[in-house]
Each structure stands twice: as structure tokens, then as C-alpha cells.
């Protein structure tokens, strides 16, 4: 028993107090996510709605670099639907037999195209700040899902003693409180296919669910496998302890 405690304790105490990613002193509220906890899973409906929000609102400026169209099959789209989504995009391919680059429709094996040719073009079009690609964002920020939600819903009027710099917007949660991105979500900004009312909170909730999936597509499988492994190891430990006691019986 002491062994278990001490191993766990040493692990916990080894915790490096992570650097604050949110603004100093701001508390990020913890929301109930469908995927939180050891038994959490991605809510499929929220995830699909979140994809819609990403596609219609965010993808103009933000890339989704590590997601290929074929990955969308995991969030509930059929092979044909995936092909159709891919086909909406134009990709550059080549060179052809004449040595020229040519354009073609997106295929399901293609990756989500970047909205800008490169980082500098992205910054030039966005107030000098490069919009980060979003497929890893919930892992790239401390307390990721809660932080992203708080940021998306954290736009407000600046307090009287704060002078907003040119082109920036006041955000409760962003470090320094002044963010280049203007508030992206507005009530009914998206018309949900399943008819869910599109409040800012709802859209933020859904897009965070989607982005949590893009960052950790293996999560559902990981937790499922984890359960089997943990149960196996608990039983195995009990069996091995019994064997250990039996073997040592003549020594005690």
C-alpha cells in the first residue's frame, strides 16, 4: 500500500507547476465536457455541429493542419459525404507531363488546406498576428478546452482604465487581455443542420468539442483500451499478490 501511495505521490509532487497560459490571475471556469474524465466520450452531435462552426466561421483564417478529409469519416460522415466535402476545395497538384502545376478537386486523402499561402501572408491579412492552426489547440494551451471556451466567450468592453491598442480587442482571458482576433461568434451566426439554437455559448461549446477531437482523435479508443488494461492489471496484481504470499508462506 505504501508503495502505491508513494509512487503516486512522487508523481504528483513531481508536477511542474505549468506556466500560466491564461492572463494572470484569471480563473478559467471548468465546464462539464462530454469527453471529460476517464469514462468521457466525444458527444457526436456536438462534434458535428462544431465542425460546422469551424468550417463556416473559423476556417477563413485558421488552418486545421493535421486533419485530412478522410478523418471526417470518424465524426459521422459517410465516404460520399467526405468526398463531397473534400471536393469543395481546390488543390494544387503536379507537375503534369508538361511540367506545369495544375488545379484539381480535393480528394479524401488530402489534408485540410491552409487558408493562407504561408505564415507571413496570414499575419499580413490579420492585423500582424498569425492565426494559429487549430487542430492541436486544445492540447497546446493549459487547460485547453476550458481555456478555448473561455476565450471565445470572453469578449467584453474593456474596463475604463485600459487603453485598447489599435486593431486589438479586449478579452477577459487572453494573456495581456488584448487580442488581435475580433469576437468570432455571434448569436445565430451559424444555422445548425439539426436545428439546435445557435447561441454564442452553444457554438463555443460545440466548436471546442470538435477541436478537442481534432487534437485527440484517439481519445475514445484510448479510454476504452485503458479501462480494459486497468481492470486486467488490477486482477493481475491481486493474483500476483496471492502467489507472492503463497511463495513466501514458509518465510513468514
Amino acid at each position, binding site marked *: 500500500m*505504501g*508503495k*502505491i501511495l*508513494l*509512487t*503516486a505521490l*512522487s*508523481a504528483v*509532487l*513531481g*508536477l*511542474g*507547476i*505549468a*506556466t*500560466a*497560459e491564461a492572463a494572470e490571475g484569471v480563473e478559467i471556469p471548468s465546464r462539464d465536457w462530454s469527453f471529460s474524465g*476517464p469514462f468521457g466520450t466525444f458527444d457526436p452531435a456536438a462534434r458535428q455541429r462544431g465542425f460546422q462552426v469551424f468550417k463556416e466561421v473559423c476556417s477563413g483564417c485558421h488552418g486545421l493542419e*493535421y486533419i485530412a478529409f478522410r*478523418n471526417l469519416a470518424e465524426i459521422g460522415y459517410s465516404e460520399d459525404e467526405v468526398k463531397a466535402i473534400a471536393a469543395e476545395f481546390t488543390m494544387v497538384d503536379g507537375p503534369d507531363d508538361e511540367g506545369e502545376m495544375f488545379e484539381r478537386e480535393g480528394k479524401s486523402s488530402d489534408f485540410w488546406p491552409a487558408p493562407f499561402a504561408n505564415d507571413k501572408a496570414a499575419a499580413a491579412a490579420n492585423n500582424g498576428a498569425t492565426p*494559429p492552426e487549430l487542430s*492541436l489547440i486544445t*492540447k*497546446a*494551451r*493549459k487547460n*485547453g478546452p476550458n481555456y478555448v471556451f473561455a476565450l471565445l466567450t470572453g469578449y467584453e468592453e474593456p474596463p475604463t482604465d485600459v487603453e485598447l491598442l489599435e486593431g486589438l480587442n479586449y478579452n477577459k482571458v487572453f*494573456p495581456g487581455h488584448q487580442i488581435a482576433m475580433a469576437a468570432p461568434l455571434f448569436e445565430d451566426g451559424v444555422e445548425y443542420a439539426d436545428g439546435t439554437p445557435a447561441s454564442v455559448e452553444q457554438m463555443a461549446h460545440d466548436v471546442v468539442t470538435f477541436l478537442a477531437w481534432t*487534437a485527440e*482523435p*484517439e481519445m475514445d479508443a*484510448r*479510454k476504452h*483500451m*485503458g479501462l480494459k*488494461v*486497468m481492470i486486467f*492489471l*488490477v486482477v*493481475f*496484481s491481486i493474483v*500476483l*499478490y496471492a*502467489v*507472492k504470499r503463497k*511463495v*513466501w508462506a514458509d*518465510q513468514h
Partner: protein
Amino acid sequence: MNGMNNPLVKWIDHRLPIFTLMKAELTDYPTPRNLNYWWNYGSLAGITLMILIVTGIMLAMQYTAHVDYAFQSTERIMRDVNYGWLIRYIHMNGGSFFFIVVYIHIFRGLYYGSYKPPRELLWIMGVVILLLMMMTAFMGYVLPWGQMSFWGATVITNLFSAIPWVGDAIVTWLWGGFSVDNPTLNRFYSLHYLMPFIIVAVVVLHLWGLHRFGSNNPLGIDAKGPQDKIPFHPYYTIKDLYGLAIFLLVYAGFVFYAPNFFGEPDNYIPANPLSTPAHIVPEWYFLPYYAILRAIPDKLLGVIAMFASILVLFILPWLDRSPVRSGRFRSWMFKGTFWFFIFVCVVLGVVGANPPEGMWLVVGRLATAWYFLHFLVILPVLSVVERPKALPTSISEAVLGGGDTAAGAAAKPMEKA
């Protein structure tokens, strides 16, 4: 063991006595009968090393060590390679668990005097393994080429510029260029693949040195005869297996349910040489040394202090000369300062994670001072002034004869460790 009567076994063993060796060193090997669970951590360390090597080799099949592909190939492993996420998370958390296990293993040695004669070289080889582990882990963390990979590499390699006269040339040589870049990444990959096998070699030496005199034990007294020892198999093989199952339970808990607990979110941002993160933090197992480094205001002295904090371990057998091995029979001062030392190490770790300013700097300096005080002053002084408890006469008497009390031994002369 009827295995030894097998004709094939005999044929091989006659030509290459590997079975005789395994029987002597793993089966019949006499081990003190009173080892407690703190003695499990050595085998756990060896197994964790094996896990890291196997998962590392599998990752190396899929990873590309080039600044343009490192981050991307790591994400490909996480998303597209069958069970890639599992192998990566096992490897990543394995690094942390290797240090957890080894630190506990070291503290066991500190408490029970496992570094004392005749085991000085055993201890020294252990410290060598620790150094090799730190180098390996440092280089491994650079490979995913995230923000922390890049900036951690930049900060730590820059430390060598503190060396007078040749410092800058050394840093340029380490980098293979004028900043951390592709040549650096590639050589770190090569060395990260190599060093675990050097660790294996030193572990073999470590075990050879161990088997020379056999394991220490919680009482710290030598075995008086065969009644004090039992064969390694089946007693300690099964106990180690049980300990392994518990260890795997905790390990799996992190791999499957909190795989990024020990990591830094910034490392999921691709390395950007033009943008420094607000707080550069090394992996948790380096935090105490990082705190010591930043406690000293002078760059060179800070580097020296940081290395000294490990080098002091090498000379420990000559700093603590108490003839009593096990902390169990030493004074309350020893026990008290031992636990306080652990506390100081934890404090150093917390300090290392925070910016070196204000209160953190003060606490960091005090803790650094105490760290060196513990080894260079407290332990030597204690070994001279303390009056330890009386030792039991023998292991078996202590184990089978009703406990290791001084009363039983009071009438007999105190045993020298």
C-alpha cells in the same frame, strides 16, 4: 531445476555457460531475506529501460529527424500509425516514470546507506547511469521539435558558453551551426538512439558490482550465514513481478487517462525560432537542477553549481563515513535531516517551475544552500558526532527472532556495518 538436465541446454551451456550464469545470478543467487518493497525499484528501473528501448525503436521506424518533418512525423505517429498514439504515450510517460523510479531508488540508497563500503563503486556507477539518463532524456525531448523542445535545447546548450575561453566554440560545436537547428536535431537523434544502449552497458556493470557483495538490506548489517539469505527465485522474482504489476497500474493510469500530465502544452506548438515562450520550463525531473542553476546570479557559477549538485553524489561514500549503514539505526538527526532533504528537493522542483524572481528566488537560494549543506556539512558532521542505536546481531534473528530491537542486542557487542 530440471531445466538444467535438458540435453540441448547442457550442449549450449557447455560451450557458452549462459544457463549456469542465469542459474547462479537470477535463480540461486542468495539475497537477504528481509528486503522490503523499497528494494523493488531497481528491477522496476531495468524494466522501464526495456520498455523505453522497445517503444523507442518502434517510434524510430516512423519518425523523421528533420526540422521540417519532425513535428509532423510525430503527429503522423499519433494519428495515422496503428497504435502509434499508444507507443508514443508509453515512451513519453516512460521517460517520466524512469526518473520517478530512479529517484526513489536513489533515496532508498541514501536512507539505507547502500553507498557505503564495500558498495562505493556500485553507487558511483549508479550516478553515472543517472547522468546518462539525463543526457538521453534531454536529447529525446528535443526530437518532437515543439516550442519547448527548441527553446529548452537553446537554453541548456547556451549554458556551455559560460566556460571560459572555449565556451563559445564548444557551443558552436554542439550546435553544428550558429543556433539550434537541423544539424543539432540530427545529432541529438543519433545520440538519443545510442545512449540507452550505453546505459544498458553501465547497468550490466552496476549489476555485476551488486552481485559482488550482494544486496544491502533494511537493517544494513551483513549476512552472517546462509540462514540470513534466500534464493532470488522464487522469492524475489515473484515479489518483483507483483511490484511490477502495481507499477504498471500507475503507469497505465497516466498513459491512458492523463498522458500529457507530465508535459508542457507549449510543446504542441511547432518550434518557432522567432518566438520565445513566456516561460521556458524543462521537464519536471530537471526542475531541481534548474532551480539551483538560476539561484546563483553568476552564469558560470550557476552552471558549476548545477553540475556540482550531481557530482557531490559521486563523493558521498567519503562524505558520510558513519560506520552504521542503515538509517534505521541512526540518530533522529539523521532521519530528520534525511526527510528534510527530500522536502528541500521537492521545494527546489517547485522553484524550478517558477520564474526566478521575488519570493521564488529567495526560497530557491535557501533550498540550494541547504542542498549542499546536507551533503558537505550535515552528513560528515553527523558521522562523527552521532550516537546510533545498537544494531541487531543478525538478519535472521531480527526477522525470525521477534524484531530488530536494541534490547535483544544490548547484551552483545555492537556490530560494525
